[in-house]
């Protein structure tokens, strides 16, 4: 090994090499830049601006007036409650329907599961308006369900399934179920069944092995799906408008009407900020607890 006396503090070529590395780093970042700029312009800046409106009152001074207003108004509080209620109910049914489906799919051989996934993805590929419209047809007073039930004789009067909370929830569950299924399925897929066998061989009952091993290992996907469904439900606009019959006003609708009907930008903006906080709080909490961001990207 040669010993070289370094009279300079830095080694040979170190400056030039470092410069080259920086240049390469910048080059790669510039590939990403156009996308980031587009998102900044369309999403970040407008929403930031919109949110900032909430901090100014009608006269233009900085104040909490808007927030006072929305947290004291019966109307707005009811909106918060309705939004949270519907979001939780939707989430509940997504889990109820989605978890067994995912479990079943994950235990099937690859090819069959792949084909069946097409049926899960089918609604994904169809327009939300088409799907909502389909539910209108199915749920309305003289729709398929009512007609069938009446003709069998199970009921005498048509059930009120559309233009109310029931219809809204049914529609939302249908729309959001794929968002729950996809991450959960991916997570379950990657669980090696050898873990369950090992647990059983160590003395656990099959049910115990399921809850302790499988369920726990499927949690990352479970929580990713939960967060996605809940956040999307919080901010949903289309479905409650079409299936709620005017009786359901969720946050997104309230924001829209507050601006469009009452031109109350301050209040609408405050509502928007609350919605944002709810959404991001959900994400942040789950992320801290379970690190789901790893599921979406590396």
């Amino acid at each position, binding site marked *: *090994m040669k010993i070289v006396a370094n009279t300079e503090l830095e080694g040979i*070529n*170190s400056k*030039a*090499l470092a410069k080259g590395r920086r240049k*390469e780093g910048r080059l790669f970042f510039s590939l990403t830049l156009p996308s980031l700029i587009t998102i900044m312009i369309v999403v970040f800046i407008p929403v930031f601006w919109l949110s900032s409106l909430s901090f100014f009152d009608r006269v233009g001074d900085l104040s909490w007036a808007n927030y006072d207003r929305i947290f004291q108004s019966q109307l707005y509080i009811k909106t918060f409650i309705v939004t949270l209620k519907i979001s939780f109910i939707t989430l509940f049914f997504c889990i109820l329907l989605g978890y067994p489906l995912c479990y079943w799919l994950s235990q099937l051989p690859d090819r069959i599961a792949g084909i069946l996934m097409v049926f899960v993805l089918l609604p994904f590929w169809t327009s939300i308006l088409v799907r909502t419209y389909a539910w209108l047809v199915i749920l309305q007073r003289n729709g398929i369900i009512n007609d069938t039930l009446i003709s069998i004789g199970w009921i005498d009067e048509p059930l009120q399934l559309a233009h109310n909370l029931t219809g809204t929830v049914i529609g939302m569950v249908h729309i959001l179920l794929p968002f729950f299924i996809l991450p959960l399925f991916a997570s379950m897929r990657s669980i090696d069944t050898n873990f369950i066998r090992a647990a059983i061989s160590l003395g656990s009952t099959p049910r115990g092995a399921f809850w302790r091993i499988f369920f726990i290992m499927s949690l990352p996907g479970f929580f990713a799906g939960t967060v996605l469904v809940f956040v999307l439900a919080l901010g949903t606009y289309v479905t409650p408008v079409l299936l709620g019959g005017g009786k359901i006003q969720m946050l997104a609708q309230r924001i829209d009407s507050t601006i469009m009907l009452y031109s109350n930008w301050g209040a609408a903006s405050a509502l928007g900020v609350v919605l944002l906080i709810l959404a991001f709080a959900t994400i942040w909490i789950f992320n801290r607890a379970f690190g789901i961001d790893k599921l979406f990207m590396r």
Partner: protein
Amino acid sequence: MSKINQNNQKSLPVSIKNLSKSYGDVHALEDVSLDIKAGEFITLLGPSGSGKTTLLMTIAGFVSPDQGSIYFGQQEMTMTPPHMRGLGMVFQNYALFPFMSVAENVGYPLRVRGMSKTDQKKKIDASLEKVQLVGYGERRIHQLSGGQMQRVALARAMVFEPKIILMDEPLSALDKKLREYMQIELKALHQKLEATIVYVTHDQREALTMSDRIAVINNGRLVQVDAPKALYDNPKDLFVADFIGESVLLQLENSTNGLMLRGQPLKMTNPMPNGVDPYCLVIRPELLVMSNSKDDTVNDLSGIVSASVYQGESVLVMVDLGNDTKISVRLPANKSHSSNNIPEVGKPIHLGLHAEDVIIVAGNVQ
């Protein structure tokens, strides 16, 4: 070895000066300097994480060192991007392009260099012939066996006649028999090509088989660079002695009379080192002799057999030398038992080491 007319050269020397690379706290390479002769087959040998692959990647240009310089011949290459360095490279997992045929893979560097189709065909065929894959041009990659894929990777790296070829553990994915066969093939190929080959491996036997010289690397530092026999016979370092060949290391004691082996003065033909540094005896099992006699030129390594494992062409024997010293020695079949009896557990075994076969290195046995 270098010719006056540069253009006729089939190889270039590689000169590495003071190369260092750190990843945070990890020093992958520490002040590595190495002069590789034109046309030689040099192996970078070391355990996992020693920095050998990092060094190879730095020569290739895929890793940018923190400092140092690299020369191919007279030309400095330190700031040159990889695709302009004009070297051929074979990767551990071959990195063949799966959507191309064999011929398209091998022809890729020629296409990139804008060679005419007819010239391409000639060179591709010549390259495939060198690796004994004549007629495989139209095959798809997924139809090939591991050994065939490796040869295609080789053909692709050679087709544009690079003066330097780098290989990153190219044989590690092959099974033992195929690997040993390919080692000889590669050596023969080297004779034909006359290019400089820099080869990375963690398998010391592979290095001993193929190389003109071996550069042993550990913890990012170059430990010893020598021809295989010199490395084997004269390890300069405890690490090298332990890593190369299957040897047994025994701690020696210092005394006023020099180095002592199990209480007896060590008999060695080379001059005894002075000073108080700790030294180890490096025992190459094939140099051990079965001797009962108290010969003046033989160091006594007798003991009781505590375990004996038959392994076909050799026997693995655990010998208890007393004083809590146990050594594990692999004895070739003809040495370990006369009259076809495997050394019995509990019986004494008389091993000895000639003075002229004694190798010592500085250090403490872990």
